[in-house]
């Protein structure tokens, strides 16, 4: 067994985290910053943080992930990192020529208490920030929240630094897509375009972290939300925040800063959540829904009605990030599946109650835990087995030990491709999810069927 020391008997732990279902804020901030066009993320702390974040993002996206670091030494961690950051800003603008440096802090610089805005101002005063270029920042202490929190904070940073209201409202809608794949952001934009709605999406990592092979390496690829677009968000008609944890803080900040009305929706994963997203776009911008979207919706529903027998009352275990899990659980429940073990590593009381609400109709005990870990999740499964697990690559160890069908979903996925290219949001994403779920369940049925009931037609 790969996880041979995991006992069935569960004892509560107060101090020891085993096999985490989250990681730390800075990586989320780095990912968000990569969603700004011509932006170089900068990690203000030891260089190891930056190395780890770049490595993990690279393994997940199989794409270049560029970021700089303040490379703290022992000295810096005693006397503060101002000198390092000033030097970094100078070097970065000189050598790598970004339009924006997006600084995020680390547990180290947060513990020291470095004041980034003050340092950035000094860099400006010293003339180290070229005309028309920007240094923005977000405080992302690793000991608070999770990678999702870091994403939320950097996204909020975009509002804090760029959003401005000129007084003239546009008919654009801001969409904050949340901590989703580049392919998902692309799909969200496509759906809005199908509706004929002008949007500003931020951040937008499509064409940054799902780039083509062109024989050229571009330090700053085509993708990402531009600075002017970010500035214009203050004039937009409304903001749609997808996912409470990742997107709400930025939306609220924009409302406060520029009085842009904001709506909080669940991530558009699955039929109902996508319906809500489309319906909100429709009503907010007063357009009507084109046939093309009804067609996609109808095809998703067609799979649901055609294949219902395979979903019905199958037990599922889920590990992932809160915004994703809320929509995914809702989707599975709508298929008559039973998500019964649900863990996110990200802390937050709201999560558990929301999941309770969604799973209320399931006639079976449901285990849910925020700030939980995969060790606990695994123990739940040992005590109450499931037909399917969905989550990031680390679940493969549980899937193999317990011999459970496994669908990869969420972050990080280190051992398969596809997530960067094929969305799981929207109706098309729903179809992809259903195909993957069915594939996993049917492959298992085919594997385990006695010869006389090995099915040709399924």
């Amino acid at each position, binding site marked *: 067994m790969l*996880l041979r*020391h995991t006992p069935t008997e569960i004892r509560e*732990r*107060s*101090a*020891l*985290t*085993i*096999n*985490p279902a989250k*990681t*730390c804020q800075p*990586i989320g901030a780095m990912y968000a910053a990569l969603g700004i066009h011509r932006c170089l993320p*900068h990690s203000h702390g*030891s*260089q*190891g943080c930056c*190395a780890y*974040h*770049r*490595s993990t993002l*690279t*393994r997940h996206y*199989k*794409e*270049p992930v*560029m*970021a*700089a*670091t303040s*490379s*703290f*030494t*022992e*000295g810096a*961690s005693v006397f503060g990192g101002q000198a390092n*950051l000033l*030097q*970094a*800003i100078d*070097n*970065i603008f000189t*050598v*790598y020529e970004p339009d924006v440096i997006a600084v995020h802090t680390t*547990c*180290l610089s947060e*513990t*020291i208490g470095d004041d980034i805005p003050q340092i950035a101002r000094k860099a400006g005063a010293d003339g180290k920030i070229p005309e028309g270029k920007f240094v923005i920042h977000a405080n992302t202490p*690793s*000991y*608070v929240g999770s990678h999702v929190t870091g994403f939320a904070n950097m996204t909020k940073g975009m509002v804090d630094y760029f959003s401005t209201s000129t007084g003239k409202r546009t008919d654009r809608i801001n969409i904050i897509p949340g901590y989703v794949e580049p392919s998902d952001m692309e799909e969200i934009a496509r759906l809005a375009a199908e509706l004929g709605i002008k949007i500003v999406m931020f951040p937008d990592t499509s064409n940054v972290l799902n*780039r083509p*092979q062109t*024989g*050229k*390496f*571009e330090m700053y690829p085509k993708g990402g939300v531009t600075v002017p677009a970010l500035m214009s968000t203050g004039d937009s008609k409304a903001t749609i925040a997808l996912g409470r944890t990742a997107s709400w803080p930025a939306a609220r900040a924009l409302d406060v800063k520029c009085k842009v009305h904001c709506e909080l929706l669940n991530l558009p994963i699955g039929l109902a959540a996508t319906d809500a997203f489309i319906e909100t776009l429709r009503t907010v911008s007063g357009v009507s829904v084109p046939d093309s979207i009804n067609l996609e919706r109808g095809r998703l529903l067609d799979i649901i009605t055609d294949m219902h027998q395979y979903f019905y009352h199958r037990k599922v275990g889920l590990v992932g990030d809160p915004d994703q899990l809320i929509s995914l659980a809702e989707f599975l429940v709508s298929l008559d599946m039973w998500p019964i073990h649900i863990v996110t590593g990200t802390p937050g009381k709201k999560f558990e109650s929301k999941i309770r609400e969604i799973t209320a109709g399931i006639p079976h005990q449901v285990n849910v835990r925020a700030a939980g870990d995969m*060790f606990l999740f695994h123990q739940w499964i040992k005590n109450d087995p499931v037909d399917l697990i969905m989550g990031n690559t*680390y679940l493969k*160890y549980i899937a193999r030990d317990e011999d459970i069908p496994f669908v990869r979903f969420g972050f990080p996925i280190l051992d398969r491709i596809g997530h960067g290219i094929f969305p799981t949001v929207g109706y098309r994403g729903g179809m992809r999810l259903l195909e993957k779920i069915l594939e996993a369940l049917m492959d298992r049925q085919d594997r385990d069927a006695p010869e006389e009931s090995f099915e040709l037609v399924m």
Partner: protein
Amino acid sequence: MGATMKKTAAASIEGIDPASVKQELLSKYPTKVARKRAKQIVINTVGEDCSAPEIGANTRTIPGIITQRGCSYAGCKGVVLGPTRDFVNLTHGPIGCGFYSWLTRRNQTRPPTPDSPNFMTYCFSTDLQDEDIVFGGEKKLRAAIQEAYDLFKPKAISIFSTCPVGLIGDDVHAVAREMKEKLGINIFGFSCEGYKGVSQSAGHHIANNGIFKHVVGLDDTPREGKYKINLLGEYNIGGDAFEIDRVLEKCGITTVATFSGNSTYDQFANAHMADLNTIMCHRSINYVAEMMEKKFGIPWIKINFIGANSTAKSLRKIAKYFEDQALIDMVEEIIAEEMVEVEKVRAEIRPRCEGKLAMLFVGGSRAHHYQDLFAEIGMETISAGYEFAHRDDYEGRKVLPDIKVDADSRNIEELEIHPDPERYRPRRTAEQIETLAAEGFTFRDYEGMMAQMAEKTLVIDDISQFETEKMIEIYKPAIFCAGIKEKFAIQKKGIPMKQLHSYDSGGPYAGFKGAVNFYREIDRMVNSKVWSYIKAPWQVNPELTATYAFE
């Protein structure tokens, strides 16, 4: 090696003047940066005495200049102690560090039985929260150790400090002592905060100190075997150590302990019962070798199992040390036997790879060792450098005396080691060593990477993203070897990129079978058609008068 085999740079790049290349690499930097980088970019030339020009190494990374370096925690927990299967490696800090170092290095481990302990698939962390940062994390650390003990009853628990730990004043060593006392198992801590030193290297040193201080020498049980060695600095990436063990066992050589691929607590505790320490990765582990010699009298030699010829050479060196004709003959026999397949594959592949250029920028020894493998299939290393090595790894240990210790290194403890009153036992007499030396046998020596590299090749320490791109544009190598962070930026330029930290998903590449694997892998990469598809027909031939095939 050395002067005798002084090489000149590849014909294929005769036209390129390394001096101007160096200029170009520096051109864009601010003056201060350029000045510092100039020291770390050296045009190789090997003197008659194998001396190489001085290179700037193990110096601070320049903030903002995109580096591939990691931190002290990564070197200590990730590299040196990560591969040991049977103790609980507990990261004390916020969740990230533990998460990122969880199973990401492909150190393979093979527990003897289904119930022998193996914690390598687990990630343990105190997941410090803001209140812990404010009020201190010792309480939580103590509780976490207790919980780990209650759940797993491990042989030992090691604690790894992350950046904030030092600053908030947690004394992990005190907690370790206290809990060791309480639980009666071996518990020890490492002050490997990320900001220590200038790279992973500091962490290696810290790990060496800790493992030596807390584990090595705890178990005096004599070990069976006629030729007993330790294998140091081999981390069993992709199964390298398995292949080396296979070969050593075949020769009748007993490996008492491996530091630290596929290793266990007991191996470390018993390591001092070996008669020879052999070092693969000089950078990460020479400290332990030095300390074991001082304390127990075990001499060490540098060996290299990367490359079939190097493997043969290393086996012969070990055999020679034991001065036993039976072993010497056995080794020759096995080399002959193993080389059959190696030569067969090499003969098939070399014609396809001959003369192609390679660049290696990785680690603290791999950038050196893998040059042998490339050479075996006729490929030329046109430029190389380490990520976190020191001058001795470049220029050879002979420069050790004149390396001045800077502030960053001074912060890493140097243990005072004295011969062990009872257990110090020189394995070789002064005379024996004399005679061996006379025959050209070198103890305690590593001549470094540069002595083996061709004239006018560029040696670049801690290469930056900017320099990497320039080097590729200028030399257009057939392959570039580095790590995951560089991989896709390089491949986007249409150059295949081989990871030499994790081997991508390949390996083993050590020993004889490993050499064969590597030949085939490089053949796949440098000769694949897929790199030729980059331009679409309409990009090759955009004008509309273009004709197109049809039937």
